[in-house]
C-alpha cells in the first residue's frame, strides 16, 4: 500500500493517539486510559444514531427508486435533511400511553432494546486495529448480546395491553429464538477455520483475497447467516412481529413519539451491526486491495444493507408456521451439514475437497427442500374455455 493510502488507512487511529498524547501532558496515567475509553465510547454513541438516521433515508430512497418514484427530495438537497426532520418530528410528537398499560414496563421496553443494539458496536472491527474493544471472545459476546433483543420486544407488546401487540409479541418470541439457533451454528465453521473467537483475528485470517465466502462452506454459511440476520432484526420477508397488514403495527402499536423512535432506531442499528458482523465473518471485514480499510468495511456493509432493502421492496411476508418450518426444517440441518463439509474441506486439500464440499451441500439443499412439501409451489393448470 502506498504511503498516502496507509496514512488515510490509519487516520483515525493516529487521531486518537494524538489526542491521548495531548491529554497525557496534563492528566495522570490512569486518566489517559479512562480518556481513551471515553473517546471510543463517545464515537460509538454518535456513530450509532447517525448511521441509523441515514439508513432510514437510504432505505426510503432505494425503495422509492425500485418503485419508479423519487423518494424524499423536499427537505434539503436530495432529501439529505429528511432524517433530521424525522428526528424532530419524533421528539415533538405526543407520547401516548394507553390507560390500562403497565406504565413502568411500557417505558422500560424501548430503553432495554436500544442498549444491546449499541453494545454490539463494541466488537465490530471498523478498520485495521479500529475495533473498540478487541475481546478475545468477540463472536460469543456478539451472539450473547444480540439474543437479548427478544425480551424488550416481548416486554413492549405485553405492557401495552393491546391484543394486536400481544399477538405480535408471541410471534417475536417464536421467530427470534428459532432463528437464533441456525445463526449461531452458521458461525461455527468460521471459528473452526480461523481458530479464534476474536473478530479482529477472524478478519486477519482472511488475509489477501482468501475471504471465507469464496469457499463452498463459506458461501453456504454466509447465505444462511444473512437470512438469519434479516429474521433477527424483523425485516421483510420476516417482519411478522410488526405485520402492518394483519396486526396493525405489531408490538409497537401503542408506542408513539420518542419511544417509537427508540424502537425504530434499535431496528436500524441492529440491521447495521448484524450486516457488519456478516461482513466481518464471511466477506473479509476490512480486507481489500487498494482503498483504506475502513472504506472497504463501510462499502461491504452498505452493500449488505442494500440487499436487505432490496428484500423489503420485493418479497411478501411469510406466515408464522412457514417461518418456523424454514428455520427448523431447512436452515438448521443445512448448518449441521455445513459444519461437516467445512471439516472435510479442511482435511482434503486440492480440487476434490472443493468439488466434494460443493456437491454435498447442493445435494443436501435439494433433499431438504424436497422433504419440505408445503414449501414447494405446486404445478397448476388453467383451462381456457369459451
Amino acid at each position, binding site marked *: 500500500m502506498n504511503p498516502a493510502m496507509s496514512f488515510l488507512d490509519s487516520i483515525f487511529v493516529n487521531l486518537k493517539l494524538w489526542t491521548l498524547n495531548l491529554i497525557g501532558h496534563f492528566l495522570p496515567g490512569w486518566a489517559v486510559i479512562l480518556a481513551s475509553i471515553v473517546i471510543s465510547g463517545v464515537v460509538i454513541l454518535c456513530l450509532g444514531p447517525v448511521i441509523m438516521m441515514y439508513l432510514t433515508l437510504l432505505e426510503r430512497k*432505494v425503495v422509492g*427508486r*425500485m*418503485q*419508479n*418514484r*423519487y423518494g424524499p427530495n423536499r427537505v434539503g438537497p436530495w432529501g439529505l435533511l429528511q432524517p433530521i426532520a424525522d428526528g424532530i418530528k419524533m421528539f415533538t410528537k405526543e407520547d401516548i400511553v394507553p390507560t390500562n398499560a403497565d406504565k413502568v414496563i411500557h417505558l422500560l421496553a424501548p430503553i432495554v432494546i436500544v442498549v444491546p443494539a449499541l453494545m454490539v458496536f463494541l466488537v465490530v472491527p471498523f478498520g485495521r486495529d479500529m475495533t473498540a474493544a478487541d475481546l478475545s471472545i468477540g463472536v460469543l459476546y456478539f451472539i450473547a448480546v444480540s439474543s437479548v433483543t427478544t425480551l424488550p420486544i416481548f416486554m413492549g407488546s405485553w405492557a401495552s395491553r393491546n391484543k394486536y401487540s400481544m399477538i405480535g409479541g408471541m410471534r417475536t418470541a417464536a421467530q427470534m429464538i428459532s432463528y437464533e439457533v441456525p445463526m449461531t451454528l452458521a458461525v461455527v465453521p468460521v471459528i473452526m477455520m480461523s481458530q479464534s473467537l476474536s473478530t479482529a483475528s477472524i478478519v486477519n485470517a482472511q488475509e489477501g483475497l482468501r475471504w471465507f465466502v469464496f469457499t463452498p462452506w463459506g458461501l453456504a454459511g454466509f447465505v444462511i447467516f444473512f437470512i438469519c440476520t434479516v429474521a433477527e432484526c424483523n425485516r421483510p420477508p420476516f417482519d411478522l412481529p410488526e405485520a402492518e397488514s394483519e396486526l396493525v403495527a405489531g408490538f409497537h402499536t401503542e408506542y408513539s413519539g420518542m419511544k417509537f423512535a427508540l424502537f425504530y432506531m434499535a431496528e436500524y442499528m441492529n440491521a447495521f451491526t448484524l450486516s457488519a458482523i456478516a461482513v466481518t465473518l464471511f466477506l473479509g471485514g476490512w480486507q481489500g486491495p487498494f482503498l483504506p480499510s475502513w472504506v472497504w468495511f463501510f462499502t461491504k456493509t452498505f452493500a449488505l444493507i442494500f440487499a436487505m432493502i*432490496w*428484500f423489503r*421492496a*420485493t*418479497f411478501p411476508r411469510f406466515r408464522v408456521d412457514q417461518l418456523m418450518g424454514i428455520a427448523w426444517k431447512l436452515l438448521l440441518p443445512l448448518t449441521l451439514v455445513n459444519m461437516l463439509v467445512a471439516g472435510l474441506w479442511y482435511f482434503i486439500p486440492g480440487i476434490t475437497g472443493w468439488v466434494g464440499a460443493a456437491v454435498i451441500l447442493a445435494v443436501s*439443499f*435439494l433433499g431438504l*427442500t424436497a422433504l419440505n412439501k408445503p*414449501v*414447494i*409451489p*405446486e*404445478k*397448476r*393448470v*388453467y*383451462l*381456457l*374455455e369459451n
Partner: protein
Amino acid sequence: MTRPQIAKEKNPVFGTGILQGMWVTMKNFIDSYFKKADQGGIFTIQYPEELCRISENSRNFPFLVYDAAPDSPRCTACGICERECPTKCIHVEMAKDTAGKPLRKPAVFEIDYGLCMNCGMCEDVCPFDSIFMDRVYEIAGRDRTKDMLIGKDALLKPNAYFQKIRPKDAADIDARRKAAEAKKAAAARPATPPDAGGTAS
C-alpha cells in the same frame, strides 16, 4: 384434443422464483435512473413545480358564463338546474326590480362546492348555455360551510375564459347562439304588424 390451457410449471430449484422477482425490482431500480417516464422510468411528477395534464373534456365544478359584463349573465334564473341537480347543491333566486316585477336575471346564485359531485347534469339541462363545468381543482377552504358556498360573483366568468378552456364546445355554442340571434333579428325586423309577438328565445 387437449383443450387450450396454461400450465404453471414447478420451479426447477427452490430459490429461482425469488431470484427472478429480485431481478425485476433491480431492473426497475436501474431503469429509474436511465429510462424516461413511459419506458419504465420514474413516472411520478413533482406536483407544485410540474402540473398534471388536463384534457379538454375534464370537468370539476360548475361556473357561470357572461357575455358582455358580469352584471348581464346568460343565466335567466329559471331554476331548471336547481331542480335537476341530484345533490341539490344549487340555490337560485330571481332578481326583482324596485316595482317587484321579476327580472330575468339571478339575484342570488350559490353553488355549494362541498356538496357538488361534479356530475355535469346542470351543464346538460341548462337551456340557456349559461352553466358549464370548470376544471379548477385548487379550491381549498378552512370551513366546510362558509368557504365552500361559492356566491354569484365568484362563479361568473367571461365567455373568453370558456373559449380558452373548451375551444371546440365554445365554438359550437357561440355559432348556435349567433344563428339564433340572427334568426330572431330577422324574424323581428320584417314583421312590423301590430302584434310583433313571438318572444320565445
